[in-house]
């Protein structure tokens, strides 16, 4: 090997290092104890007291499997290196320990909850890792790229520092573009009383505006009564959830829900994103005091399923290439959308080549849980940490798959890195790419 890959332990993160240089043992201890005592409860204690250290959860974790079964990467192994010493030493740990804890909790766990299905007691290791992340947040030692994203959320209520005018301008631009193809198409802004508010993550207006175009085309063709907010609350993403900055998580989720209530829509349909689904469907609403989202959340997979099932959307010709389907953790283990995803695939394509394991037992793409958002310093380690996914992809490819459908933004990027790194010749697409390509469009378009 010409290029020497850094061991994960050698990775330097400027944000983390700057924070560590400011920390004192007293501060570390005070913060750890305030979180452990003040913010955890029966659940944390039960997980700590119930875990019999059997290691059965190891088989679940893509990091463990990809890193040649190195015990440091097993779910319980990560707890041993982070939570146990914090509890045992009553918070007396040093900065080297915190540096390691940052690396483990932020870049070596995708919070994918696969291990829940491997631990006989259903111990939620992902939850324990979020407790560690909360401590790291309170110490100010979150990895730089991820923290910057949290700053963006706090300042702009979106993930990518998109300014208020840039957002509206982008929608109007995409509307213009799309009208060249479908003249009567609209992206209705602030349409009070529409059935549906469509929300996206900020990378769409920032880098992938064609996804908004495609969504608008699908809405138009299916005759959906929809709207998008011109004001803040249009972004459903949430990296604050992954940094452990729950106050900001609550703030941005409130903004999102209030955009929908201001527009008095019946439901929120969201684009093909997994972590955002986790945030609006399960996590953010809870911090705000809602057991269920106050406005029903429909993920794009379920939305396309409904449109196809009811015949509102018709496929003109099927997608010609064999496809394989990646199950994004957050909508599959987090929302049970795997069968609907397969229905949509079968409507669009004749040949689905399954990866194994799949559905609830899928392997995470390795990007989820904010790991990819920790940025370039960790990229090689992240790809190396998900060899099992590469093997799955290779296998699907060798059985003829040409296109990889990944109905989640994070998965898309994570899988792109894996496919690129290993030179696996798979084209990665969203459902909306294929639906847009294959659906019946009104006469006069094109």
């Amino acid at each position, binding site marked *: 090997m010409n290029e020497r890959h850094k061991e994960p332990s050698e990775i330097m993160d400027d944000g983390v290092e700057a924070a560590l240089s400011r920390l004192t043992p007293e501060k570390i201890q005070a913060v750890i104890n305030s979180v452990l005592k003040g913010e955890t409860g029966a659940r944390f204690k039960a997980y700590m007291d119930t875990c019999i250290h059997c290691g059965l959860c190891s088989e679940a974790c893509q990091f463990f499997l990809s890193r040649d079964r190195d015990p440091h990467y097993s779910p319980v192994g990560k707890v041993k290196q982070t939570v146990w010493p914090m509890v045992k030493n009553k918070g007396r740990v040093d900065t080297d320990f915190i540096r390691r804890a940052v690396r483990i909790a932020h870049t070596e766990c995708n919070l994918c909850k696969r291990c829940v299905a491997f631990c006989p007691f259903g111990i939620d290791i992902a939850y324990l890792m979020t407790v560690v992340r909360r401590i790291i947040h309170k110490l100010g030692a979150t990895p730089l790229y991820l923290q910057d994203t949290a700053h963006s959320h706090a*300042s702009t209520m979106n993930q990518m520092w998109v300014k208020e*005018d840039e957002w509206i301008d982008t929608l109007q631009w995409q509307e213009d573009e799309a009208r060249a193809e479908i003249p009567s198409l609209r992206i209705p802004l602030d349409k009070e009383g529409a059935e549906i508010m469509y929300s996206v993550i900020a990378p769409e207006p920032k880098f992938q505006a064609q996804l908004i175009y495609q969504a608008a085309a699908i809405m138009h063709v299916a005759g959906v009564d929809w709207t998008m907010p*011109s004001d803040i609350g249009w972004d459903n993403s949430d990296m604050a959830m992954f940094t452990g900055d729950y106050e900001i998580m609550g703030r941005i989720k409130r903004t999102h829900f209030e955009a929908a209530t201001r527009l008095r829509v019946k439901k929120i349909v969201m684009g093909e994103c997994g972590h955002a689904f986790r945030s609006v469907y399960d996590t953010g609403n809870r911090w705000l005091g809602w057991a269920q989202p106050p406005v029903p959340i429909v993920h794009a997979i379920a939305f396309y399923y409904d449109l196809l099932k009811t015949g509102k959307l018709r496929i003109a010709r099927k997608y010609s290439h064999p496809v394989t389907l990646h199950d994004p953790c957050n909508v599959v283990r987090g929302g049970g959308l795997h069968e609907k995803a397969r229905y949509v695939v079968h409507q669009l394509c004749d040949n689905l080549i399954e990866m194994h394991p799949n559905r609830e037992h899928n392997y995470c793409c390795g990007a989820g849980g904010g790991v990819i958002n920790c940025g370039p310093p960790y990229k090689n380690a992240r790809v190396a940490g998900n060899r099992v996914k590469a093997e799955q992809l290779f296998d699907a490819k060798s059985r003829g798959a040409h296109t990889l459908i990944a109905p989640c933004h994070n998965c898309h990027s994570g899988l792109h890195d894996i496919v690129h790194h290993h030179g696996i010749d798979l084209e990665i697409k969203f459902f909306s790419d294929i639906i847009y390509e294959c659906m019946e469009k009104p006469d006069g378009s094109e």
Partner: protein
Amino acid sequence: MVVSSAWDWSIGEKRVDTKSWTERFLQVQEYQVSADGESVAAIVALDDQAFNVCVNGALWDTPFDKIWRLRFTPDSRATALVSADGQWTLAVNGQTWPESFDYIWHPLVSENGQHIAAAIQQGGRYAMALDGEVWPNDFGTIAYSALSPSGDRTAGAVQVKVADSGQLEAFQEGTFSAAVDGTAWGSTFVNVWHLVFSPDGQHLAAEVRQSLYDYTIVVDGKPWPQQYTCVWAPSFDPVTGHVVAPVRKDGHWKMAQDGELLWQRPFAQLWQQRFSPDGSRLAAIAATAFGRWTVVVDGHPWPVTFAGMVSDLTFSPDGRHIAALAKEKDHWTVVVDGKPWQHRFERAWPPVFAPDGSGSVAVKVEMDGAFTFAVDDRIWPHAFERNWEPFFSPDGRRLLLPTMNQNGYCRKVVEKF
């Protein structure tokens, strides 16, 4: 406030033939109705490149390349954001502001409808414009733009120091402030959210974060001495000028006033507080426990709670009654003074109180996929494709009902039912 006594309150109907618009124009966008119900308007497409606003069948004098955000002011003038030759401005009844900008958005209207402000971007710099006049200073970004109730002052959260993406420390030292009429406060904060003017427009309060962890309320640039783990938007007592805000500590929310606890009782959530018009009562939306939502009046929750959500807290003009919308599963209802109506709705719009002290409440509602009106838990027997929020006559005896069906727009004035 709007003077509704001058409106036509005679019982009867006035129609506008909006049906023909769809034949006249390539596309007719969402209809908007003026507060007095006399005008109905829509953005219409003349061809692929040109748009105009049609009000009661008449077009504005000049078409534009693009138009969005058509709304009526409380004094029934039609406004929209319009663009010609790549420049944007605001138009009122077809008359544009003399100045135009690279972009304009978030229009705000004073209570009497006389003044209009909006956020603008010019050459990548940000400011507010009030009735066409731009702030003397501009900023790197603007958000949470605000207009004082009488419409004489504007404000926005602005970034006054540069912290490029990735400069964590610079950002955490505080780059945000609030600007009033273009002049920023001397103090900076990590974040500034939700600017609120006092009723007389003399003071400005906001939520701020002083570090990643310490939140408080700032009034005219000066933070409360106390810090909290989170805060929500403040409000001014209309009589005393005190500032109240929900604050979070130890995982619970309480109501604070000028930094001191006002309500001792903790809540799982607490927000959207409102003063009665005379300032004697303070109500807020709260979750008394996880997933149990209600209205709290002067610290005392209503006896009923709802799992879905509670919204649109409204005081009657005399301050004696409170109404709110509540959602349970998929259905909404109206709750007045703690008593829910029997009827369930697919959707409901903000409750409207009669001004006569009777405590009567009228609401635009959706039932079985069609729209109608409900007054004091009675349902108007006709349904419409579309309707707008009802309005009580000054004596509270009649109702203005703006409606639309296949035949077009119809302004009805009926006896209260």
